[in-house]
Each structure stands twice: as C-alpha cells, then as structure tokens.
C-alpha cells in the first residue's frame, strides 16, 4: 500500500517556496487531482487501510470545498505555505481551539477517559 507516498507527494507539492499560489489557485486543484490519481493507482493494495480511506475522503472534501473539477491537468504544482515556526508565534488562537477554556465557562468540567496499549 503506497498511500504514504501519495500523501507526501501532495504535501511536497503544496509546500515549498517556488510557487506563490494559495489554496484558491487552479494549481491547488491540479495538486488535488494528482493526489486523487495517485490514490486510485494504489487502491487495490490499500483496501482496508485506514490512512488510505481517510485520504480518499479528505480529497473529496477538498475538491468540493474548492470547486475543483475531476478532470483537468494533474502535473505537480508547487505552492508556498508558512514555515511551521512562524505560525507557532500566534498565541491568540480562537477560543474554539481551546477545549477546556471553551468548556468551563458554561458547564461542568469535562469527564476524561484513558486508553492505553502496551507490551505483548
């Protein structure tokens, strides 16, 4: 199952510096089509693989979100994204991104559960 290869090709295609596009450019749809093409190629060997099915669903969502047509060029575009370091500086993330903060204000604290897997 080569789904991870497809995943990394898509991430590589949509990160890097030599194409200043954004998720709304046609190049993003091209990258998505290439990603979809790659997952179709590996469908048979990936049957039942969670990462594969998640990738397939993710692609469908993104294609409908960005109105990408299923046919069209599939060559690898290069899009620029912020380097991770920069985005970490933003500490003012919205409250919805902080479960406990948004939880405590209007109800009892959440009940936490634990799951663990170890040994043989």
């Amino acid at each position: 199952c080569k789904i991870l290869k497809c995943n990394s090709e898509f991430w590589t295609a949509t990160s890097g510096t030599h194409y200043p596009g954004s998720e709304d450019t046609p190049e993003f749809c091209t990258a998505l089509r290439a990603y979809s093409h790659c997952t179709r190629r590996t469908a048979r060997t990936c049957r039942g693989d969670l990462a594969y099915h998640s990738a397939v669903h993710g692609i469908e969502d993104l294609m409908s979100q960005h109105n990408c047509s299923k046919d069209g060029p599939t060559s690898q575009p290069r899009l620029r994204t912020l380097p991770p370091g920069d985005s970490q500086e933003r500490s003012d993330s919205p409250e919805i991104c902080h479960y406990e903060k948004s939880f405590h204000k209007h109800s009892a604290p959440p009940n936490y559960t634990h799951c663990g897997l170890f040994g043989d």
Partner: protein
Amino acid sequence: PHLRTFTDRFQTCQVRGAWPLIDNNYLNVQVTNTPVLPGSSATATSKLTIIFKNFQECVEQKVYQAEMDELPAAFADGSKNGGDKHGANSLKITEKVSGQHIEIQAKYIGTTIIVRQVGRYLTFAVRMPEEVVNAVEDRDNQGLYLCLRGCPLNEQIDFQAFHATESWSTRRKGPGTPVSSPQVFTYETATARCKEKLPVEDLYFQACVFDLLTTGDVNFTLAAYYAFEDVKMLHSNKDKLHLYERTRDLPGSAAASG
C-alpha cells in the same frame, strides 16, 4: 498487546495486523501488531498511525506515523503544529526523550497522546474527554474501535490457556527471537523481575510477568512500567489506577455467549 479501554477494561489480545484503536469525528488511531516470536499469537505494536482530522479554524488534517526504531517528533509533513490556521498551536508535538518518548497535545479537543518506543515495540496512551470519545458518526460500525469496545472475544488471550497451549518451539531461541532476550524466565524469576519495577501485583504487574514468560525480553518490564506511569499521568480517576479484575467479555457478546 495489553489493552486498557476507555471504560477501564483490561484485556490481552492477539489483534494481529492493522486494527483501529480510535475512530471518531476528530481522530483516527490505527496500530499494526506483529508476532513477538515467529509463529506466536502474542503480538506487540510495530506501527502506529494517528490522523488528526481537519477542524474548523484550528487545525488542518495532520498525520503522525511511528514505526519500530522510528519515533519522529513531527507530523508526516515535517511540521510540529496544526498548520497554517489561526489556531494552529492548539495542536503540538513535543519530544520528551529523543527516539523514545513523544507527547502530542491536541488542545482543540482536550486530548493528550503519549507514544513511546520501549525495546523494539511501541506503546500508546491517550487522555480524551468522554464527549470526544463518543463523537462518532455512525455508532453501528464502530465495532472494531478497540479503545471503546475492547477486543473481539476471539482475539482475546487468556493468560493461563495461552502458556499451556503455545508450543515451546515458539519460545526457544530462533532467528526471529528478539536480540535482547538472553534468557527464558520461569514464573518465579519473571515475578521477581517484574516486582522490581511494579511493586503492586495488579494487572500491569501480571502483564509484565506474561510478557517475560512469552518473550524473555526484559524490555517488556519497562513497557509495563511506563504504561502504568502513563496511567498515573493521564487517568483522571486516581482511585482507578490499579486494576485487578481481568475482563474477558464484550457487553453485547457476554449476553450472547450466555
């Protein structure tokens, strides 16, 4: 591997191959378990995939993947946070011990995950709000969601029956025997060894003894020890850290099996 579920049921399972541990609207966790000795039905986790799903303006979809001898301190795309969204720092990977212990904080869903490599195998521990645990789209086909439902009955290993039936040939040294297992333990020596790290004879202690008897690999002593350390850190009910009752049945199948 030994599994402690969200409802504090403790089971030892075969679950060989790829199995989903968690599968809800926000998070997928899947493990791949491989036999600890050629031909043995005792397995341990050799690969782990965690998918954090796209969540509003907080995080993009992120994939974390760990394998034996490869415990990265970053997501598959090389980043350590939730991407470019406004709330990107509500998802963060921290390396506690290089190559051995990483922690992932997913604050946007109140969840903490610990992944370790102990010896050659991986361990997994998670703290998650009940509300998130139960946020599943269609409840019916979550049957294989091990953290929620435990192992199917036919995948559960009964300690006593296991050692009685598992042939000695699988335990004798062979090309697949773990390098770090220089000795075969008796019940007495395994008990003594486990007592050094786990003084209370609870199910973690019994799991340790089972693993030593099954593989002779002393690293499994540490796996049980760290699993209990993770329980102490992550479990919200301090009265339930030690478990003594082994659970064998699924609620539904218990009735069916009469």
